């Protein structure tokens, strides 16, 4: 695992361990260097001191050429096991005695070398003059193995390792204890944050353990939670109020709508009675007084009758539209293809010479209010017939598309079509895209279609282009 992805607890442990280890190592190395230097110095001094003692003691032996005595003096070196070789040279530089006595003569220099002790290879060796007053009596050669130095180094290494292990384990224990001060609040904070995001419970609070930056972080975290909670509360409250308001308004609107529908129904109803009177009297005028009227009066009478009839249609449509709005739908299974055939016969009875080409798919049955859906088919098919009537070869295609949970029907013609930018006006009451002079109509048919389909839980839409026909779609849920 890379360092940056480690848990914070291990990161802290690693950092502290690394610092301790490095410091200890640096200290041990410097102590070791210092120790080895001073040990070398002291071994040099020690050997030199031993040499001085031996030189001083061996003056008489050299002067009186007493080998036995000189040997005994050198034999005292047994007390210092690291001195492995010692040789006394006489005044002329010839080896006088050597230690140990069984030593081979090849094992030491045959003639004295320059004064002083030095480190060579793995030993310390050197020459020291034997002097009495100003008189040079001879030379002492001594060689010491560095066994004691190595022994010292080994002891040092053992002690250093032990101390290091001890202090590192102590540091480890202390770190384990002390890192909790930092890691525990962070882990607690992280745990709280995770719990909150999992359970979406913003009422939980992190526990503050200290007054340091972690403490203020906890405070800030808790403050944020508080704010979120408050905002949530306000939002909920607002939502509830809004819902309430919406439902209130909806009820108000529904009531208003009902009132309006009742109003328009009664108006339409009431308007029909005087209209019937007008039509009745105009008919009487036409039938009984036609001989007494001149041509102009007869023309005007016809215009009055036509307009009155038109107004009657308008009122009928309006009544149908408002009735549709007031009536509840009753769903039954509708045999759509039978219904469509019936409707075609009804709306195009005069198309006996097969002027219109019908392309009809085998349409599936659907569920819906039988009268309302028939009205939809009547309105859409009659529109198609109406708007393609002026074509030389009108083609009307009726088909369907099955979708998940719904069936989409379409009625396509190759008539005059319309400009799609007026699409939004299509299904509004009394909205017409063509003039009454070109095509008859009251502008209520598509509004009724829209209302019926909406009541069934479906949708209505259209595609068209000017001069290229139109296609109306409506969907009914299964």
């Amino acid at each position: 695992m890379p360092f940056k992805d480690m848990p914070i607890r291990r990161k802290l442990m690693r950092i502290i361990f690394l610092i301790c280890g490095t410091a200890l190592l640096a200290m041990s190395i410097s102590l070791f260097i210092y120790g080895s230097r001073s040990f070398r110095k002291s071994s040099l001094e020690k050997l030199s001191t031993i040499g001085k003692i031996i030189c001083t003691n061996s003056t008489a032996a050299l002067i009186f050429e007493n080998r036995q005595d000189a040997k005994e003096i050198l034999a005292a070196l047994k007390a210092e096991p690291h001195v492995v070789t010692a040789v006394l040279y006489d005044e002329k530089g010839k080896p006088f005695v050597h230690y140990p006595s069984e030593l081979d003569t090849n094992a030491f220099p045959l003639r004295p070398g320059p004064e002083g002790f030095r480190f060579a290879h793995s030993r310390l060796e050197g020459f020291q003059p034997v002097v009495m007053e100003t008189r040079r009596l001879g030379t002492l050669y001594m060689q010491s193995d560095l066994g004691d130095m190595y022994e010292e180094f080994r002891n040092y290494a053992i002690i250093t390792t032990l101390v290091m292990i001890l202090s590192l384990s102590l540091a480890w224990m202390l770190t384990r204890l002390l890192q909790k001060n930092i890691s525990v609040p962070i882990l607690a904070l992280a745990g709280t944050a995770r719990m909150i995001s999992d359970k979406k419970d913003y009422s939980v609070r992190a526990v503050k353990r200290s007054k340091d930056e972690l403490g203020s972080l906890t405070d800030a975290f808790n403050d944020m939670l508080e704010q979120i909670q408050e905002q949530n509360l306000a939002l909920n409250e607002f939502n509830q109020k809004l819902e309430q308001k919406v439902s209130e308004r909806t009820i108000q609107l529904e009531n208003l709508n009902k009132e309006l529908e009742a109003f328009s129904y009664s108006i339409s109803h009431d308007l029909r009675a005087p209209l019937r009177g007008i039509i009745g009297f105009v008919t009487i005028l036409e039938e009984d007084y036609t001989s007494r009227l001149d041509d102009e009066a007869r023309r005007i009478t016809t215009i009055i009758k036509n307009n009155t009839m038109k107004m009657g249609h308008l009122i009928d449509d309006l009544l149908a539209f408002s009735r549709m709005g007031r009536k509840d739908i009753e769903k039954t299974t509708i045999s759509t293809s039978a219904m469509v055939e019936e409707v075609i016969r009804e709306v195009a009875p005069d198309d006996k010479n097969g002027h219109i080409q019908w392309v009809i798919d085998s349409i599936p049955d659907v569920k819906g209010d039988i009268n309302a859906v028939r009205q939809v088919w009547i309105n859409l098919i009659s529109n198609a017939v109406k708007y393609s009537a002026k074509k030389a070869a009108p083609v009307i295609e009726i088909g369907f598309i099955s979708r998940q949970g719904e069936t989409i029907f379409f009625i396509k013609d190759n008539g005059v079509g319309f400009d799609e930018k007026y699409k939004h006006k299509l299904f509004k009451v009394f909205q017409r895209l063509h003039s009454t002079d070109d095509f008859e109509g009251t502008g209520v048919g598509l509004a009724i279609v829209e209302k019926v389909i909406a009541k069934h839980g479906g949708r209505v839409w259209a595609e068209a282009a000017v001069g290229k026909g139109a296609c109306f779609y409506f969907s009914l849920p299964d």
Partner: protein
Amino acid sequence: MRYVFVTLLLIINLPLVAQAPLSREYELKAVFLYNFAQFVEWPPTAFSNSEAPLIIGVIGKNPFGTRLKDIVSGEKVNGHDVSVQYYDNAEDIGTCHILFINLPEAKKREQVLQLLKDRNILTVSDAPGFPAEGGMIRLFTRDNKIRFEVNLEVSRAAGLSISSKLLRLADLFTPSKNS
């Protein structure tokens, strides 16, 4: 005839063979006399001043020839020049630090020792029984090497301090052993 010649040769050679170690012996003994000076400490009163010479005297027949003089010439012991003096009679001995007594008769030796009793003079001789007579150092030959025997009691009585380094090389004379 051949045997006679060999025998003659042996006879002729005898004095030569005998004389050679003798002269070497005294040559060594002369060196010893000088070297003793380095391991013996005299009381300050033994020198009239710090510049005064250390005197090595010989009484009786001089066995060293000029050898002793050659050895000490130019040498210094503790800052003192070293000089050699020869005496015929004990009465002639003035300032002296080391005295080699080469008198064959024990009686004469004892007379000299008696005379020098209270003076700080290191007495040396190669006469056997010299320590028993009250002398301080006797030189003798052992294993073809010159050795010496020291009568510490006498040297101490004379106010002389002999270095332990020297004593380590010496045989120590103990009166009880000899009496």
